[in-house]
């Protein structure tokens, strides 16, 4: 059933393409409406399959302690999911560290479940025939903050440090092309080739719409992707070295971006090209 719905959406895409080629700028309101509807329709967004898988993983007993993740505290108390994602990344006293959702999940796997996370990290990004626990869990957990506002925590000195470092990293140029995040994301209405670039150097609507729409189902990749993947891919385009998964600079950038996006409404998983 769900599959059929997805198929019809893809057909709709193709129909759009045809009218684009023929009528050039003739992108009718109807087609935009259809695109909008598709984003918010669980039946036609394959990202919701990841949400379902994540729900199972969340309550599955694993690791040397044969425990589920329901004992994991994402900031609002053990097992509390509603609204937890909206306040991440945040400082966790037990780990003495500011963590994003993925760092926190790894910590809980190790400490609550006694799980060796090597395999989970190896599958941090899904590929053909290789599911990713992290993508599925993030989809499930983030979805539990839908309709809520991005409310990144900045009160703890370590959280404030993260925001300040994230900002510095956003503007830091380097690599063979001298690129920084700001090269591509510090002006409105710009694009690379045909890909639109959100302006993220200013607090406001573009940052809110961007950060409120991750995790997202990427049609071009046929996979649900997390912010860790987005930043990994942007550092690739930036011609920087491979960033270590779930490492501090990525969390710092996420804190900074969420600060720019403060108050933005979360609606995930979204669907993007």
């Amino acid at each position: 059933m769900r599959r059929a719905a997805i198929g019809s959406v893809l057909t709709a895409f193709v129909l759009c393409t045809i009218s684009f080629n023929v009528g050039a700028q003739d992108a009718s309101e109807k087609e935009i409406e259809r695109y909008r509807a598709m984003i918010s329709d669980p039946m036609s967004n394959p990202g919701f399959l990841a949400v379902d898988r994540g729900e199972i993983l969340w309550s599955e007993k694993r690791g040397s302690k044969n425990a589920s993740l329901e004992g994991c505290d994402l900031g609002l108390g053990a097992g509390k999911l509603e609204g937890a994602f909206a306040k991440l990344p945040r400082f966790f006293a037990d780990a003495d560290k500011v963590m994003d959702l993925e760092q926190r999940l790894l910590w809980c796997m190790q400490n609550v479940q006694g799980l060796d996370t090597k395999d989970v990290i190896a599958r941090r990004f899904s590929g053909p025939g290789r599911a990713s626990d992290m993508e599925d869990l993030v989809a499930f957990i983030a979805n539990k903050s839908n309709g809520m506002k991005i409310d990144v925590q900045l009160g703890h000195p370590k959280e404030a440090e993260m925001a300040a470092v994230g900002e510095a990293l956003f503007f830091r140029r380097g690599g063979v092309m001298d690129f920084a995040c700001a090269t591509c994301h510090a002006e409105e209405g710009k694009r690379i080739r045909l890909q639109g670039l959100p302006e993220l150097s200013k607090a406001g609507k573009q940052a809110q719409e961007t950060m409120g729409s991750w995790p997202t189902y990427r049609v071009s990749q046929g996979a649900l992707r997390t912010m860790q993947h987005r930043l990994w891919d942007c550092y690739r385009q930036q011609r920087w070295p491979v960033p270590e998964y779930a490492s501090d600079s990525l969390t710092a950038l996420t804190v900074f971006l969420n600060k720019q996006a403060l108050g933005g409404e979360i609606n995930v998983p979204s669907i993007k090209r």
Partner: protein
Amino acid sequence: MKTILKTAALVLVAGTIVLPLTADAQTAPKQAAAKQADPAVIDAYLKSTFGKAPPEWQARIEPDESLKTCNNFRNDVPSAEADKIVQRELAKVVFPADGKLLGDWKEGKKIANNGRGGQFSDNEKTVNGGNCYACHQLELAEVSYGTLGPSLTSYGKDRKFDPAEAKQAYTKIYNSHAVVACSNMPRFGANKFLTEKQIKDIVALLFDPESPVNK
């Protein structure tokens, strides 16, 4: 199926561009004025994220003198600093020994279209491209162009194919900061990303009267 997805992707992007993006910042950020991060702290973060990369890759993200200044001022450098950068970067430009600045525009066209090279997903055999279309419009027939830089259509023709202008373009491509301090454009020659021959071919793309850029 793959092509369908790709086309669908294109439509989604086009859709994104069409959607009105009103950008009025309306949220009142509740945080106190952000403190500048301590450079030593930033280094520690970088180490934790990129510290396992091969040494030559880590060296690439170590800012040189000019880039340090650009980073400090977020590219908006005061004029005294800008002059210093332009002088320093100009000294790095190496002009062809035989004085010929125009290569083969047909090759230049390929280089301008090629966005590969320098990414951690590339391998040693990858031929670096100039990726000019990522940021510039060049020949009118190519509709997939970015807008981070100005349009370069009819570039040579508009400059009456003046050799002094061609030399300036060579300089710009070799080292963009030698012309505009803290330019967002890569320093292709100075960073050893493109070869002298490749740069000459691109200059020809801009300045050869036969080049589609000038048609």
